């Protein structure tokens, strides 16, 4: 069953067209990777799916579990199970990581009309997730992302994903700024969450993350269009040959 279906999506920023007709279908349990050179529109696509409102959708449709995703506010999309791991997580001084996560979880619970979780029940579940990402418990009493290293911030994103248990996770350049050990830990965390109910979109510039999180399908985004789709071997080919050879043919390519 398809979780996400994107049809002919066109997106503008400041009257400049960034996405020029995207078609994509993601099924339950699948991991898709969106690759492409800088400025190709990868992050824009990720953020539009997470419902960032600074982007204008000029044409196209996106259905998520059969519902019109483009009509949802960001918090509604989150309530419906969409999670985005940010490329640049923001800092929230004065709000502890643990309090923030519990507030987020309870906001989603309220949206789904589930009981809220109190601090006592939250803690054990939380500790377990911390272990999954090999994170120091002390980070949890620190303010959200404040004074975190680049790697800690990215791990913190995946920790949030583990706690919020989304149905569609979008990882926006989660590998950027990670050293090889941190990359492995983050990838292990994501892999541990993989299951038949979760779909994942991994947005990345480099192939190396895909050595750890092996995708079912790889899509290459060039100049606002998906110019090629294929299996994991496509990522390896890109690693070897770069994006240049595909950019040249982008104009005439048809989406897979």
């Amino acid at each position, binding site marked *: 069953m398809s979780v996400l279906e994107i049809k002919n999506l066109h997106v503008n920023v400041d009257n400049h067209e960034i996405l020029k007709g995207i078609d994509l279908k993601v099924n339950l349990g699948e991991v898709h990777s969106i690759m492409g050179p800088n400025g190709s529109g990868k992050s824009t696509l990720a953020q539009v799916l997470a419902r960032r*409102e600074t982007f204008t959708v000029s044409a196209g449709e996106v259905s998520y579990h059969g519902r019109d995703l483009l009509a949802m506010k960001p918090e509604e999309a989150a309530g419906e199970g969409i999670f985005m791991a940010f490329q640049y997580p923001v800092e929230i001084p004065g*709000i502890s990581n643990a309090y923030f996560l519990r507030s987020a979880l309870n906001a989603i619970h309220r949206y789904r009309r589930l009981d809220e979780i109190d601090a006592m029940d939250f803690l054990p579940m939380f500790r377990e997730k911390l272990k999954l990402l090999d994170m120091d418990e002390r980070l949890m009493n620190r303010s959200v992302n404040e004074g975190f290293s680049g790697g800690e911030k990215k791990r913190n994103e995946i920790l949030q994903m583990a706690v*919020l248990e989304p149905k569609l996770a979008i990882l926006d350049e989660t590998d950027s700024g990670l050293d090889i050990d941190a990359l492995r830990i983050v990838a292990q965390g994501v892999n541990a969450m993989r299951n038949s109910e979760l779909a994942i979109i991994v947005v990345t510039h480099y192939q190396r993350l895909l050595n750890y999180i092996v995708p079912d399908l790889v899509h290459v985004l060039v100049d606002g269009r998906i110019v090629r789709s294929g299996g994991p071997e496509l990522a390896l080919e890109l690693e070897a040959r770069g994006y240049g050879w595909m950019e040249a043919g982008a104009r005439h390519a048809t989406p897979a």
Partner: protein
Amino acid sequence: MSTNMNTIQDLADREYKWGFVTQVEEERVSKGLNEDIIRVISAKKNEPGFMLQWRLKAYHHWASLEKAQAEPKWANVKYGPIDYQDIVYYSAPKQKPGLTSLEDLDPEILRTYEKLGIPLQEQKHLAGVAVDAVFDSVSVATTFKEKLAELGIVFCSFSEAAQKHPNLVKKYLGSVVPYTDNFFAALNAAVFTDGSFVYVPKGVRCPMELSTYFRINAANTGQFERTLIVADEGAYVSYLEGCTAPIRDENQLHAAVVELIALDNAQIKYSTVQNWYPGDKEGKGGIYNFVTKRGKCLGVNSKVSWTQVETGSAITWKYPSCILQGENSVGEFYSVALTNNRQQADTGTKMIHIGKNTRSTIVAKGISAGHGQNTYRGQVKIMKGATGARNYTQCDSLLIGDKCGAHTFPYIEVRNSSARMEHEASTSKIGEDQLFYLRQRGLKAEDAVSMIVNGFCKRVFRELPMEFAVEAQKLLGVSLEGSVG
């Protein structure tokens, strides 16, 4: 901008919910200010002679300042001229003579305080908080008085103190804020009508929070109250102050004075949540809150700590300060000031280090939204004899939207080279990226704004007594509604 911001904008129209008017029969004097009015006020309060003499001296001083047009103009706020002859200086709800218990109080007034969430019946009240309720110019009720009296603590209206404890009043009145201090302090000294008085005797730790709730009800009046708190040697008291007023198109003047005196080893903690009517979105109406608050650490090892959350008033002009006279004395100032719509605030503190090894801490958080203008003004003065003095100042501004302003004027004057001073300052803005991050995690836009603001204010909220901290957080949320756009 995007609907991200519009969601918050939609909430803008919620009204100031404390803006109702209570229908009571008022007893008021005619408009204007002159010697006769002051004599009338003093007579109504049945004050001892020294009070009237002091008021008259203050009045003549003020009149000379007014003639010289010496109303302070240095603050970073703008308002039209105030006609001091167009204000009613005394207005009180009519009461039965010989009011002795709450049963005699006008039920309308009781209901007013219930509506404000301050029930005056002791059994209904929050455990551990005693309240003095000031309605326009007079104190209408003081709770837990007898219980406190058993410990020798005096907690009553200023009028009662002037009659029953004239020696204490005479000794300390004007000892921290003399009537010559400034224009508004002189005005207050001449016409102040009521307020609270607290005396905590030697070695007594006041077992409950003491509080005053100020309510302006009558139209065309000013509220001029005066609070005096004395903590004797080794005593401790925590005092809270809250305030609201009805919605009116005219501006109303509130010129209060607060004096705190801490003797050897005494501590006074003074917390304010100020929520006077701020005026409407276009800046029409609202309270002019021109207040002089100062604490004197007279004794060794004494401590005065101010915490204020200023969310109301059209204009705030207020600098709760500490005179650190006793050796090893400590002064603290924790402040959150919020200006939304057309509100203006010029607020901060003065820390005057006189004694040896005196220490002070200043943490000021200014939040500006809408067209609000927020100014921090602080002075840290280390006098010659203040060897080993230390000050730490942190001053942060948060901007919401792009039509508001934040301004900072820290003055530092050091006359003893052993002083150690630290000053940190920052300015930040709630960005669309921060809001999007929180909303992507499931939080509604308005909850996201409140979370960011509460995080910003945390260092100050931590200093507030528990019930007050919760109240302050809620208040900040309400005051900010509609602020992003």
